């Protein structure tokens, strides 16, 4: 009997401990909510003096620190990773709030993680993310707040931005994301390799035929002409190869089928990459190497050309530092060996017609907006990161959406950034990336399937047709 009582007591204790565990979480969250209810960013701008809105903005009356969960793409080799860290520290010091940063390098895994977070209700409070098709799912689900809705309470929200440059959503044509900095995609050059191969630095009138002739010389000199991992990140070549068979006027039109005129230009683009592969201009291990490996080939002087985005400036600069985290250790002589120029043109696309724009921005999630403790802090955070003082630091050599962009002090920039600014000054057009509209599983047949296309195992026509069919079935 005694043992039975002990057994019953142990069972009871176990059940109680489990219940207590469950309750402790609740208690914690209740306490936290309770604490946060009274919390708000002290610096948050006062909501509109509208009696009807007083109830909607209790945060402004509150005091105490708020913890914001923020996800951005300012991580890894992104040239703004350090700027972002500094900005977050500045905002935390100014407001007393804290940021739980869950930023990561922008790749497909990151996009999947963000989409899954939204689906499972664990989305961040503020999100710096792509404003193209990648954001469709959470906009359709009503999980982010439009700029107009925010302005109803905070009239000055994003008022320093040029309204025409804030991209509208593909879902409902409303504007959600406040842009901070633009991007461009161009061709980085290792001039040391060019010199060794006796090739001149390409200019603004660079054509695909000249490019092929230069690649032949570079290959003959024992270098890899193009640093690209076609089995890993074929994105940049995919974009420009298609663009080279179109024009800035029609590049953003997704074809109805592989057989129509637009579809044929996509097929021709894929076949252009196949031709370069067959000519041996990509590294020997382009199908098995990672992007990091081919990028290392470029920075170590084993490959000449690299098509990539403006964010890669930071990666190249880091590769010239003995300590990648310490700008003071920059080897300026080594950095001077790198240059950036236009991607060779073909047909209706001039070399100076680049891919770029304002494809990302700061979203405030519905979850944060509906949380009285976080609403003001979220607004304050976005306003701090998109202020007239902060945006130029992030935009650097790229575009911004500021109405009154301040003069750039060139002395603050390194040689590659200055070369990038000079290159951008000669740009004749900046067109968005069609792959931003062509997101999801429709990309698989031509992105992940690029090795099969260039090796001839899958015909370019079939791969394009499969992708377009998937796109139109979405």
């Amino acid at each position, binding site marked *: 009997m005694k043992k039975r009582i002990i057994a019953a007591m142990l069972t009871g204790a*176990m059940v109680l401990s489990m219940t207590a565990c469950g309750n402790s979480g609740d208690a914690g969250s209740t306490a936290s909510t309770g604490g946060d209810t009274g919390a708000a960013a002290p610096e948050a701008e006062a909501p509109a003096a509208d009696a009807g809105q007083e109830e909607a903005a209790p945060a402004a009356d509150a005091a105490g620190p708020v913890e914001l969960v923020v996800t951005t793409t300012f991580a890894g080799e992104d040239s703004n990773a350090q700027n972002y860290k500094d900005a977050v520290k500045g905002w935390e010091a100014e407001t007393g709030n804290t940021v739980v940063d869950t930023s990561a390098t922008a790749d497909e895994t990151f996009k999947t993680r963000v989409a899954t977070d939204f689906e499972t209700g664990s989305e961040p409070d503020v999100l710096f993310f792509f404003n193209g098709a990648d954001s469709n799912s959470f906009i359709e689900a009503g999980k982010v707040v439009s700029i107009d809705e925010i302005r109803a309470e905070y009239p000055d929200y994003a008022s320093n931005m040029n309204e025409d440059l804030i991209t509208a959503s593909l879902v409902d044509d409303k504007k959600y994301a406040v842009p901070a900095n633009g991007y461009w995609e161009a061709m980085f050059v290792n001039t040391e390799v060019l010199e060794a191969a006796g090739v001149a630095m390409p200019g603004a009138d660079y054509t695909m035929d000249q490019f092929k002739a230069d690649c032949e010389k570079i290959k003959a000199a024992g270098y890899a002409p193009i640093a690209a991992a076609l*089995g890993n990140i074929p994105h940049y070549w995919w974009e420009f190869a298609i663009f080279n068979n179109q024009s800035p006027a029609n590049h953003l039109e997704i074809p109805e089928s592989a057989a129509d005129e637009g579809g044929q230009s996509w097929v021709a683009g894929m076949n252009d990459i196949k031709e370069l592969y067959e000519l041996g201009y990509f590294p020997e291990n382009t199908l098995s190497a990672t992007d990091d490996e081919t990028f290392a080939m470029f920075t170590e002087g084993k490959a000449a050309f690299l098509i990539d985005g403006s964010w890669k400036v930071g990666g190249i600069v880091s590769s010239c530092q003995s300590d990648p985290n310490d700008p003071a250790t920059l080897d300026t002589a080594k950095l001077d060996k790198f240059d950036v120029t236009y991607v060779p043109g073909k047909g209706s696309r001039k070399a100076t017609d680049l891919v770029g724009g304002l494809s990302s921005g700061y979203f405030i999630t519905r979850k944060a907006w509906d949380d009285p403790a976080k609403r003001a802090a979220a607004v304050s955070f976005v306003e701090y990161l998109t202020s007239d003082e902060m945006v130029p630091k992030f935009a650097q050599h790229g575009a911004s959406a500021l109405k009154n962009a301040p003069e750039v002090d060139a002395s603050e920039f390194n040689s590659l950034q200055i070369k990038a600014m000079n290159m951008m000054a000669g740009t004749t057009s900046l067109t968005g990336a069609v792959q931003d509209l062509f997101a999801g599983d429709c990309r698989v047949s031509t992105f992940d399937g690029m090795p099969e296309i260039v090796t001839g195992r899958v015909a370019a026509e079939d791969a394009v047709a499969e992708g377009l069919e998937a796109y139109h079935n979405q």
Partner: protein
Amino acid sequence: MGANIYRNKKPALAFLLPAFLFMVVFLYYPFFKNILNSFMHLKQLGASATEFNTPWYTNYEEMLHDPNVWTSVKNTIIMMLVTLIGQVGIAIILALMVDNIGRGKQFFRTVFFFPIVISATALGLMFNLIFLRDKGMVNQILEILGKQNLTDWKAEGIALITMMAPVMWQYVGFYFVILVTGLNNISDELYEAARIDGATALQRVRYISVPLLHNVICTCSVLAVTGALKVFDLPWVMFPKGMPLKSTFLTGTYMYYQTMETKNVDYGAALAVLIVVLGVILAKVVNAIFREKDY
């Protein structure tokens, strides 16, 4: 009265209930939900499926025509054989050798077991550097030995070997420790008697150690084969997306690829069902082959 408590099983059931509920919530519910999802139209992880595919068995039909499925199944079966021969086989040899040395047994146990405690992701990154085409450790050694051209260890022809070698290496120590423990359980008196009868060292291994290790080897073999079905992290770190040319997919990595990379979630669910079916069949086959004996 005191002994009655052992007859009454109710308190034991009360203790089992929390663990049972845990399994229901975190294993059986997702398992059956996954089977259901494999028939549904689901293109977003975490989203709720609202409609069935048309026809409902679309994913299973697609599997039959998907060359990557056959590649991944073939690679997984190769991985099982490699695991069986490479891991258990090498572990037996190492265990027998270590069992026959006088001193340093503990040292070798620690040394061989050590790779198990290192994260597979970290090992994957390390082997990435070892097999790097440009400046990788293996190619540098070959260069010192006079080889002129760099070898791409991740090229299509040899990628599978490059992927399986580290997996094999990582788990040898695990089976080695199990087998050494099995060898320790064999009475010294048997060896002593054999020695007096004039048995050589090789004969003692052949007629005493190996037969008495039979059941331990069976257990190791079952663990190795079923473990091979679950290998994921190290191959994915070294060969993401089945690189090169989708030739290195295993069933686990292909399921992950379909779910996380291509967002073909319902197809990923169907692949998960295939993995379970494959696992059950192979476990039955292995259990039939490596049946334990009663001594």
